[in-house]
């Protein structure tokens, strides 16, 4: 009896010891900041560091979310998400299905696609920044003189951001769909062929429903990632840019209030608002999309 118990204690100790490193990381980088936010948003940041913070209660939150810049940030965030996610899911799926064919040289093609997902946003920004350069970019090369340049154009800047985001997201979406396709039961697809279904019907009536758990997953993960994007906005437009207000997403605003012109109270307010927004959208995803997902077995 006691031998059994001491074995259990030993096992439990080992278990906790094994998760300790991960637990520490999560605590320092996820849990602590998360809860710290909730105390930050209740205080006005002091005008100079070192002075005491002033209690604000919920008033700072209301001021922040009703400000024009927050409204613009919200619009920018949602526009970016709507531009990137559905197209990214669709393209990733189409490319993954194309790459799933057993053709020669497909491994290279797959690798090329997958690399966009693992290249950093800085790399993407440099590549696309070059393409979008008003002097030696793509448009001048085509004989079109963009004025103002795409990145400085309030109408087009966000589309440019979305193109960069898409380029990266399609890679991820492609990888996830490729994995999903690998795990589809081969014989079911063969049965569809024999049963007379052509490629298109097979795709929509068999492949898509069987992939629906993956589609849902990519959609949800993509949405969350899109709502936290600000890398290319910072690198290619920045606060000085003419199109700045159009690309100033909520995540970018958090970054500015936390790092560039510190105001932790406001940063905390925006991040809580963004958190609630993302959580709500994710919840709605689960509520309305997941119901249409077929879990095969």
């Amino acid at each position, binding site marked *: 009896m006691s031998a059994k118990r001491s074995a259990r204690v030993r096992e439990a100790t080992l278990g906790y010891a094994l998760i300790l490193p991960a637990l520490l990381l999560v605590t320092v980088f996820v849990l602590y900041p998360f809860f710290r936010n909730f105390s930050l948003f209740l205080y006005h940041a002091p005008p100079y560091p070192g002075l005491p913070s002033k209690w604000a209660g919920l008033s700072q939150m209301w001021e922040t979310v009703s400000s024009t810049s927050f409204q613009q940030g919200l619009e920018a965030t949602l526009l970016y998400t709507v531009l990137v996610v559905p197209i990214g899911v669709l393209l990733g799926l189409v490319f993954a299905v194309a790459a799933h064919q057993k053709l020669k040289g497909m491994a290279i093609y797959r690798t090329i696609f997958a690399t966009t997902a693992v290249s950093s946003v800085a790399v993407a920004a440099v590549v696309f920044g070059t393409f979008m350069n008003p002097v030696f970019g793509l448009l001048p090369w085509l004989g079109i003189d963009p004025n103002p340049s795409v990145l400085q154009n309030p109408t087009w800047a966000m589309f440019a951001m979305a193109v960069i985001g898409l380029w990266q997201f399609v890679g991820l979406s492609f990888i996830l769909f490729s994995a999903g396709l690998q795990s589809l039961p081969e*014989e079911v697809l*063969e*049965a569809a062929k*024999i*049963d*007379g*279904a052509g490629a298109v019907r097979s795709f929509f*009536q068999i492949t898509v*429903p069987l992939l629906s758990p993956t589609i849902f997953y990519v959609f949800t993960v993509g949405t969350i990632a899109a709502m936290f994007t600000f890398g290319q906005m910072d690198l290619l437009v920045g606060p000085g840019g003419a199109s700045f207000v159009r690309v100033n997403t909520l995540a970018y605003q958090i970054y500015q209030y936390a790092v560039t012109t510190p105001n932790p109270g406001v940063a905390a307010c925006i991040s809580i608002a963004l958190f609630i927004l993302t959580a709500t959208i994710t919840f709605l995803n689960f509520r309305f999309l997941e119901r249409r997902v077929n879990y*095969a077995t």
Partner: protein
Amino acid sequence: MATVAFRNIDKQFGSNVVLHDLNLDVHDGEFLVLLGPSGCGKTTALRMVAGLETPSSGEILIGDQVVNDVAPRHRDVAMVFQSYALYPHLSVGRNIEFPLRQQDLSADERKRKINEAAEMLGLSDLLDRKPRQLSGGQRQRVALARAIVRDPLCFLMDEPLSNLDATLRTQTRADIVRLQQRLGTTTLFVTHDQVEAMTMGHRIAVLHEGSLQQVGTPTELYEDPANAFVASFVGNPGMSLLAATASNGSIAVEGTATAWSGPVSEGSITIGVRPDGVAIRSSGIPAVCVGLEVLGAEVHVLADVGTSRLVISQPAHAPRPKLGDPIEVELLTQPLIFDATTGARQS
């Protein structure tokens, strides 16, 4: 309905030769069983008829049309996979309907056909269920219903019974035979189980390591096997193969002359004996009892004769040797004689 034919079919995967010069005709309306041990190329042969695999050389014919370049969906064959391959997201009714949706049928017509097929297979009450809510036997019947519903040129069945338990397998075996008789559709049925083959097929084609060994009715295969492999594979259990020597027209096993003689080429040979063609006697060929299988009315005595394994069938009430006992056996019938190296039948 149609005939199916393999003409000089070769199939390689890389350097691995899976089928070699296969020539086989399946007659119109026939139930032909493709029988062979695991890995001999049965599934590959079947998949070539379906169009899921292309021959390396040779021709596949359905009716009198060469179908090598015809896409699977235009071949009008129906296949039952070993895994059943039901559409997991569709209800039973929708699964059965799937092949019909490709045809120009009215909704009423489709419904009529679904109900007919479902009725034939006892699935009428299950039409709204999803495949995961079915037992193995029910899934198997859905796969059959999906195959018969569109009245194809031929059925291709790849070990459809192998996932069922023994009782259900026997019952479904009879169901499939009855169904095929009623529909009269040409059927190519793959199995590695010789009992299944013997009880179901009009004719059986035995495949071994990618080569066709023999085609014939169950009786022909049993009574007149073309070579040592067919002799040992067909029957339950199959023939025992013993190393023997022939000289002056008489046959000796382990140095002991048998009572049988006849025209036979001199030298090393292999003889085949059925379990009921041999018995334990007080004197004869020396052997050692290495196993006993009690089957009820009869008992199989397993014995080693030199390096060969012999199965002797005897009634349950006969005295049994114990494990390790030296015994002596005598041939009761004329054995079949095979070439010692090639296994080809000599007489």
